[in-house]
């Protein structure tokens, strides 16, 4: 069953005539001209659709939290897709931008919102160009602006390009960045639905969630809810990457066995290799091993397995790679992207990197693994946003699940280091580039 990816490769789908020929903007007509905002909202509630960006919060409920009445409310589409391993929104924006625009207009109608923004990451330069052209087309055709299609609903839509910061994918960091500041996350509560952009109530949703909205209106919320499994309805785009033969985006019904996605669709690891572990929802999710391949891929099963579906990005690591090299990549990424506002995250991510580097250079003892686990524990839940948690959870799971391999690695690296000339060993915490030309006192 293809909903979002239905004939996605049709040439010219990014232009208005082709999109309209295929029935585009019919859901918008239906919503605006035949339904009240409450009816649209109840359809979204019935559909049970959960946010596709990472947190998996029900979209209908999020809209219902918005206060009513005469005030400036905002809708922000989060297109700052920067979770490592995720590239589904890029394909949607590039190939079918009008689907997203239609979804934004319908969602804004349900939430009685008159100003909308799309925050797209600065690296998606070509995709932003396509989206900008599509917004101009939609505005010229009367789908945006005052009194859309003769209804009472008005909406302005502005595309905002970011400039390269992972933290701006976090909803409050994104709001600060959209306000023209450094992208530092804010304290919650108040949640954005109450006080968000420019202190107004703000609805924030992912590209994929909003792109599904026209289809929910077309099919009816209850019909959409028949897809997938009870608590995870509908279809989901999964981005499969890493050690697989056919990496790419696949649209699956939620609840599909993970093995079918990794082996059936993406072809599994290269001949002669096998899955060692995999991230089910981007690099922020705790890893699963090859024993977990038969788990159904949906929100609740992943949560029960101690991990999360996240953004739907499956990264497969085969047995030719060590746990240490992947852990180091993950930790370095979060250390680089930490905004530095909260101490546990800023220090915890950096020290985790240093401890992993100690293992590599042969200076670690198995006790370091316990320290690392305790650092991870002390990050989780102690910061304004979940960036620190996003490092602590996968690293913690790697230490827990591959402890014996890491202990062997510590031992092997120590033996290597003992054989080496001590003069070559750089002291802990002093990377080469920092050793300056200054004399010792």
């Amino acid at each position, binding site marked *: 069953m293809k909903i979002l990816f239905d004939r996605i490769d049709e040439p010219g789908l990014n232009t208005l005539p082709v999109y309209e020929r295929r029935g585009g903007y019919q859901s918008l007509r239906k919503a605006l001209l035949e339904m009240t905002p409450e009816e649209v909202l109840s359809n979204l509630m019935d559909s049970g659709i959960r946010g596709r960006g990472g947190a998996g919060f029900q979209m209908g409920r999020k809209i219902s939290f918005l206060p009513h009445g005469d005030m400036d409310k905002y809708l922000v589409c989060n297109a700052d897709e920067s979770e490592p391993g995720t590239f589904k929104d890029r394909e949607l924006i590039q190939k079918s931008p009008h689907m997203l625009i239609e979804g934004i207009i319908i969602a804004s109608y349900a939430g009685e919102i008159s100003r909308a923004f799309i925050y797209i990451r600065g690296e998606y330069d070509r995709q932003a160009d396509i989206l900008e052209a599509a917004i101009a087309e939609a505005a010229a055709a009367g789908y945006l602006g005052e009194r859309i299609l003769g209804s009472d609903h008005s909406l302005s839509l502005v595309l905002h390009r970011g400039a390269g910061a992972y933290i701006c994918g976090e909803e409050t960091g994104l709001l600060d*960045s959209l306000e023209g500041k450094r992208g530092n996350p804010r304290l919650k509560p108040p949640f954005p639905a109450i006080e968000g952009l420019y202190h107004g109530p703000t609805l924030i949703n992912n590209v994929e969630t909003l792109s599904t909205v026209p289809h929910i209106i077309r099919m009816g919320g209850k019909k959409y809810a028949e897809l997938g499994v009870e608590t995870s309805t509908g279809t989901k785009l999964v981005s499969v*990457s890493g050690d697989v033969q056919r990496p790419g985006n696949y649209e699956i019904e939620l609840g599909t066995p993970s093995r079918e996605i990794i082996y059936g669709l993406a072809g599994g690891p290269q001949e002669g290799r096998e899955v060692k572990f995999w991230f089910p929802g981007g690099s922020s999710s705790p890893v699963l091993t090859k024993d977990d391949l038969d788990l159904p891929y949906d929100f609740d099963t992943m949560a029960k397995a101690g991990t999360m579906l996240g953004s739907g990005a499956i990264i497969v690591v085969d047995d030719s790679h060590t746990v240490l090299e992947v852990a180091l990549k993950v930790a370095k990424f979060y250390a680089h992207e930490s905004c530095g506002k909260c101490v546990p995250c800023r220090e915890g991510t950096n020290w985790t990197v240093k401890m992993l580097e100690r293992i590599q250079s042969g200076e670690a003892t198995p006790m370091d693994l316990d320290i690392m686990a305790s650092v991870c524990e002390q990050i989780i839940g102690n910061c304004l946003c979940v960036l620190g948690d996003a490092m602590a959870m996968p690293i913690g799971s790697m230490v827990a699940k591959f402890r014996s391999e890491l202990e062997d690695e510590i031992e092997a690296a120590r033996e290597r280091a003992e054989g080496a000339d001590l003069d070559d060993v750089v002291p802990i915490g002093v990377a080469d580039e920092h050793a300056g030309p200054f004399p010792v006192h």
Partner: protein
Amino acid sequence: MTATRRPVPRFGHGSRVPGWDDAVDLTKAPATVPDPATTPVPPGLRETIEAAMAKYPDRRSAAIPALHAAQTVYGWCSPQAIDEVASVMQLTPAYLTAVATFYDMFSTVPKPRNDVYVCTNISCSLLGADEFFEAMLAAAEGDPDVNVRSFECLGACDIAPMASVNGEYVGPLELDDAERIVSDLRAGRAVLEHKQLRYRRCVDPEVAAEETDFGPPDRETTEMTDTAGLGPEGDTEDRPGPTAAIEMTDEQLAAHPEPEAHTDEDTHPAGEGADEARDGGPGEAEDGE
């Protein structure tokens, strides 16, 4: 952030040299909002920034688009560029410098015009991105127009290992492609055209099957169908957004000379000559007049 950060000076044994974190000259008043009357701004740049400010309820929201525009004109967020943006937006240079240093795509030190971002995050590095990054550095070594840097996940793990060359995504890359990228850039050609993301089709098998409803795909054209809807050549001039060039007349160019070549300020002791309230380094202060 990493690219623009200077290393902290350290002793041979590893401790930081005293004074590395000294504040800038505290007796000097911080730079205030530049006076529009005495800060000339190229008209193209001014219009771009003003158009961006008009799009938001709060003009400050235009900070990132404005810095993108200024970086396009000057090649980097130079003190002069930041002063000009500050004058149009009526913000302090310190505020804009704080914003510019937060984001990876802004550079507060001079950089070559062509950006090659090599993704070295998990999915790409599993497939050899670190080796490619080394090859790319070697291929571009000594070329003053190519800025090679490693980047966090660029959102194209399906073509891993990949790179973004002036915003154009290319992959999957092999080691030989590093030389090709540099030679394509030098020749002004579209970079690695056959590996550009825009020609990649969806891999989902059912999507491919259903496509036959639209008639048999023509082998000649299907392979290179441009799903992005843009021309295959790098037609950056006509496009909106940060890649669009801002045209300047000769007189304007004379009034706004290109910033002087970057002097190697890394060897200066930190703190010396750091200007005003910016956290820009010593070298930038000289360019800022």
